[in-house]
């Protein structure tokens, strides 16, 4: 499903070079639930951004469904982000002027889905994450956990094959964290590939496979 090949990202800070990723070779199978763990600064977010097509590598390649994403145009990459990947951020990153319903419908808006259709689907998705009674709330009117669930619903709006979460439980309490993991587990059971970064050992224990990172490298 997703494969990286000598994936390297270098940040230049003045004269110094920081290897955020260093020759990462990772193979994620379709339908897999994989957790990436590692100390702060080890390159976990950078890796997720690369496989989520949010950033471009310094060298190496990311293959999604066998397609070399480095060879794709900006627009094609946007389409992959829109159709194939659902990205969940640690900071939620909802659009604060839109309510929950509109936030969830936003990826469908960009996909050109009709208004009625996308609002209906957005409502269903919100009901699925237990927010059926909060659809007209603005992000500022919701708790962190609720916002993160809106973000998950949004990630699912175009029915992606891959769900990527960068510390999706990092900013919520343990209980909400568990709910979120339950939801992710459910998505995995539906057949979606799920990739999460986490600091939480308990989460790591619940998933199929964990990969540990250090200094930009994936350890075996």
């Amino acid at each position: 499903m997703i494969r990286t090949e000598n994936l390297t990202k270098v940040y230049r800070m003045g004269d110094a070079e920081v290897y955020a990723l260093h020759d990462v070779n990772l193979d994620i199978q379709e339908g897999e639930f994989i957790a990436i763990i590692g100390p702060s600064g080890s390159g976990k977010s950078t890796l997720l951004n690369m496989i989520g097509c949010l950033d471009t590598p310094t060298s190496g390649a990311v293959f999604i469904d066998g397609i070399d994403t480095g060879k794709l145009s900006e627009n094609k990459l946007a389409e992959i982000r829109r159709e194939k990947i659902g990205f969940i951020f640690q900071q939620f990153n909802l659009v604060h002027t839109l309510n929950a319903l509109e936030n969830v419908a936003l990826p469908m808006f960009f996909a050109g889905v009709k208004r009625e259709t996308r609002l209906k689907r957005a409502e269903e998705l919100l009901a699925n994450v237990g927010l059926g009674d909060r659809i007209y709330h603005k992000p500022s009117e919701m708790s962190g956990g609720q916002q993160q669930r809106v973000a998950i619903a949004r990630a699912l709006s175009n029915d992606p094959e891959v769900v990527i979460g960068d510390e999706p439980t990092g900013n919520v309490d343990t209980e909400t964290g568990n709910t979120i993991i339950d939801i992710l587990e459910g998505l995995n059971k539906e057949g979606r590939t799920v990739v999460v970064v986490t600091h939480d050992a308990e989460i790591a224990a619940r998933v199929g496979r964990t990969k540990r990172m250090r200094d930009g490298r994936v350890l075996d």
Partner: protein
Amino acid sequence: MRDKLLMAYRSIRERRTRSILTVLGIAVGIAAIVSLMSVGYGMEEAITGELTGMADMISVMPGKITGHAYVELGSFTDRDVNDLQRIGGIKDITAMTYDAAEVEYRNKRAPIFVLGGDTKELGGFYVEPVGIKEGRWLRENDFKGCVIGDRVANDFFDEVIHVNDKLIINDEKFIVVGIFEKASTLYASDVDPHIFLTLHASKEALQNDEIKYIMVRVYNIDKAEEIAEEIVERINDNHGLDDFAFAMTMGSAIEMMGDVFKIIRGVLVGIAAIALVVASIGIMNTMLMSVMERTHEIGVMKAIGAKSRDVLTLFLLESSMVSLVGGVVGCVLGVVAAKVISLVAGTAIGIEFSAVVKPEVLLGGMAVAMVVGVLSGFYPARKASRMSPVEAVRYE
């Protein structure tokens, strides 16, 4: 498309305060352009309009202007007037008597200049451009009637004079039949401080029938200079003097003011340029700020699958709407401001004029709002949409 418009509108409405500020930022700039230009045009028109209305006039006086003072050398004769009638190209001639008289009103006395002439001709020169505020203009048989200028009515005596009040002019009793409006600058010295009588009455009151002033109207303004020269020549011949008569065309008066116009124009262009620059910078600033602070939002949109084009369309729609509203509000504010400024400035400098709102100024204002507004919204939106999603999301 309707969907996108709706979305853009939502986004504007949700950021109400920000949007209102942006609209105001644009509106103030546009209002500056519109008001300054309209006031400028109003001033220019007030001056040129009046002069061109008088451009066919030639004033003839028995004397000369040395420096700034007018020195009277005598008076014209009936023969002078008859001779002028024979010059081609002249539409009408008014001969006037003119002298100071002692005027009494309710036991108060004041020296006032009295002007007498053919009522029709005199009326033709003054009644139409200045207007009668109260009562009516003189009739041929108004031997005991007089019409007074605004200052005579309001300033010269302790009490204000009204129609039907009695004046004693050099011991002759007169009844006020009409009062002029306050004259605009160009006519003020001719009308405001004077009392107008019929030719007959003025002969009686002033105890002489000396012609002190002749006004001539020509058919063709281009010939005015030529005719003025001929007038001077004929009168000088009649009196056997080289420089007895003095004739001034309005055309030459306008020419004398030509430099003033150049200055006014220059100032106008300068003001417009400054207003344009100030407005543009203001609009750019508000627009750049309001879009730049949304870089994060643009990043989020891109991260969830928006193409750069989608984001740009959305922001372009938004900035067009904001610019459009800003432009309209600016035009309205500008027109209102122009009216107020012209009123205040008019009373302050004593020239009455009203702002002239030209449609091209309004259109220009709208164009500036749209072009500058949309471009300065477009620029940061494009910059943000070209960042990688991660970069834009991280931007705070």
